[in-house]
């Protein structure tokens, strides 16, 4: 079996939002708590969950925008954050890229599109100055933009075109791994499909590995090989896309999947939804044991005492729930 490209071991990221006068943390948001997974080369792992569940924090930590509080993230077996602190950081930065959610806010309005796409080339000295222009045009063409537009500014482009610029910028660095942080949620339906097709084509032609973060579950299913479901900073389930959608095991995944409206009126007419009572608890003071227990209709006494571990059922379907994997 191949080696995973990206491994995440017991990753936690806590943000201190309030300190005492001596600097002792008084209030901490446990944005990500003890998350582990891996991504194989050429694979797309979908990461889904509601607003505030920590999915973007995981993505940002993986590309080194955040330092983890505990645990580690590895790229080809080497610790990402330790390497980024050392001298070799430049090459590691190049290999890890991110596409941001908002195509309006993530491009510098005062730089031309050519310079935006060319910046990674300059920083990592990927091309000779004489070939810079040519390479930029090649990249723009690769993402379906007119190479003649390199001299234009971001405001002259539509949302879908800007997102293509963001993708071209990420590709410029010739990365191995791209974190896609809700790259399509700001776009119209017909444009979303264009971007998704582009991402799939690029994956096939240059063998990219993606972590695809989104809350549009049907798109995640379409694009991902495996999907991880997060709730309040923890992974609750991780399985093959098809398995997760056909047989979700964790009560939260079941409720989440039942809430997606499907574009088929015949199916919708007979579909039952699973409602979760209440609201997501605060990550400042999450419930003990299983974090989902306060909203779970199957909650048992053990759920408050023991934190369920993410366990494999033998087929690669991982679930963190005492119902599925009774503690012995």
């Amino acid at each position, binding site marked *: 079996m191949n080696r995973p490209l990206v491994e995440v071991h017991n990753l936690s990221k806590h943000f201190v939002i309030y300190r005492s006068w001596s600097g002792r943390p008084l209030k901490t948001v446990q944005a990500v708590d003890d998350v582990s997974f891996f991504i194989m080369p050429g694979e797309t792992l979908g990461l889904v969950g509601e607003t505030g569940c920590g999915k973007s924090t995981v993505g940002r930590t993986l590309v080194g925008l955040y330092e983890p509080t505990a645990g580690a993230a590895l790229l080809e077996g080497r610790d990402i954050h330790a390497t980024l602190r050392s001298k070799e950081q430049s090459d590691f930065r190049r290999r890890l890229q991110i596409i941001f959610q908002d195509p309006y806010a993530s491009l510098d309005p005062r730089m031309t599109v050519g310079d935006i796409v060319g910046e990674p080339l300059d920083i990592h000295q990927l091309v000779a100055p004489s070939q810079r222009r040519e390479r930029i045009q090649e990249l723009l063409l690769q993402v379906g933009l007119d190479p003649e537009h390199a001299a234009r500014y971001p405001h002259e482009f539509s949302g879908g075109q800007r997102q293509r610029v963001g993708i071209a910028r990420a590709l410029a660095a010739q990365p191995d791994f791209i974190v896609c942080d809700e790259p399509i949620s700001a776009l119209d*339906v017909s444009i979303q499909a*264009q971007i998704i*097709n582009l991402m799939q084509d690029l994956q096939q032609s240059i063998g990219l590995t993606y972590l695809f973060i989104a809350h549009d579950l*049907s798109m995640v299913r379409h694009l991902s090989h495996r999907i991880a479901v997060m709730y309040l900073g923890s992974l609750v389930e991780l399985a093959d896309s098809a398995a997760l959608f056909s047989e979700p095991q964790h009560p939260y995944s079941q409720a*989440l999947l039942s809430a997606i409206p*499907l*574009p088929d*009126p015949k199916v919708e007419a007979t579909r039952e939804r699973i409602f979760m009572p209440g609201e997501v608890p605060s990550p400042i003071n999450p419930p003990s044991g299983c974090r989902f227990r306060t909203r779970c209709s199957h909650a048992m006494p053990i759920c408050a005492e023991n934190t369920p571990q993410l366990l494999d059922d033998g087929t690669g379907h991982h679930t963190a729930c005492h119902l599925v994997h009774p503690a012995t």
Partner: protein
Amino acid sequence: MQPALLTVNNLHVHFRTYAGTVQALRGVDFSLAAGEIVGIVGESGCGKTVTASAIMGIIPSPPGQIVSGEAWFAGRDLLKLSEKESRRLRGNKLSMIFQDPMTSLNPVLTIGTQLTEPFIEHQSLSQSEANERAAELLKLVGIADGATRLKQYPHQLSGGMRQRVMIAMSLACNPSLLFADEPTTALDVTVQAQILDLLKRLNRELNTTLVLITHDLGVVASLCQRVLVMYAGQIVESAPVHNLFAEPLHPYSLGLLQSVPRPDFQGKRLLAIDGHPPDLLIPPSGCTFLPRCRFAMQACLEAPPLFDLAENRQSRCWLNHPDSPHDARVALAIGGVR
């Protein structure tokens, strides 16, 4: 068929900008039956929200201008009302839920102040009576502990709660027509499911006619009975929801349906609609969808009319003309082989 609750004829709305006049609506016609749930779908900028705003009488003018058209509601043309008459209807018989629950509530007024306003304004209730009614409303939309909530400010509530407050506010005077402008776009799917369920229940229990503006075809499939598809300021297709999903008659509707992943097409490539919508500063003279259409032909250089078809359907495409090429119609019917 029931008598129409609202009939809109030939609605044209323009916006004057520095770049020129944007023809946001270019002849919109439709009617709504009482108690119906109708979805309006289309891309950003196609005129969904402008249609609702024009009927509600809340198009900012200037720069907006209703150039022509009528909107008949309870024997009156809504577009010809004075501001005073319009105010009397708005929030009373006509109501609207806005897209963004984070910005459409006033942050410096309590929920109670904002929620009792329609009662005081339209029904001349006293503050204490209004408070009671407001608490009842909150219960109706699924917020327990209404009395406490009324004293709170919008920032103390979550997004889903705020959207419920918005819905409660729009329902205060038991409107006969309610526009919901992307009521769930800013919310998580789990909260969205609760809000949609609430809207469905209100339609059933209070017989409110609901116009749901959205770009999520899943939401349309789960809630609406009839769908209007808009493109570049016009309605391009109108059909009962089952017919639209089973057999779209306009290439744009087909394109929308094929660009979302469907469980029965797993693993297949999405069929995106290439290109982007036309610039409404200078709308093209022929069919507006022509540059993006897979079925384009010579006739499309002339703008097609909205054809009235069987089963209460309408479509603005030359393929629905009886003389259109047979193989192109077959291609559309089987899902457009490229």
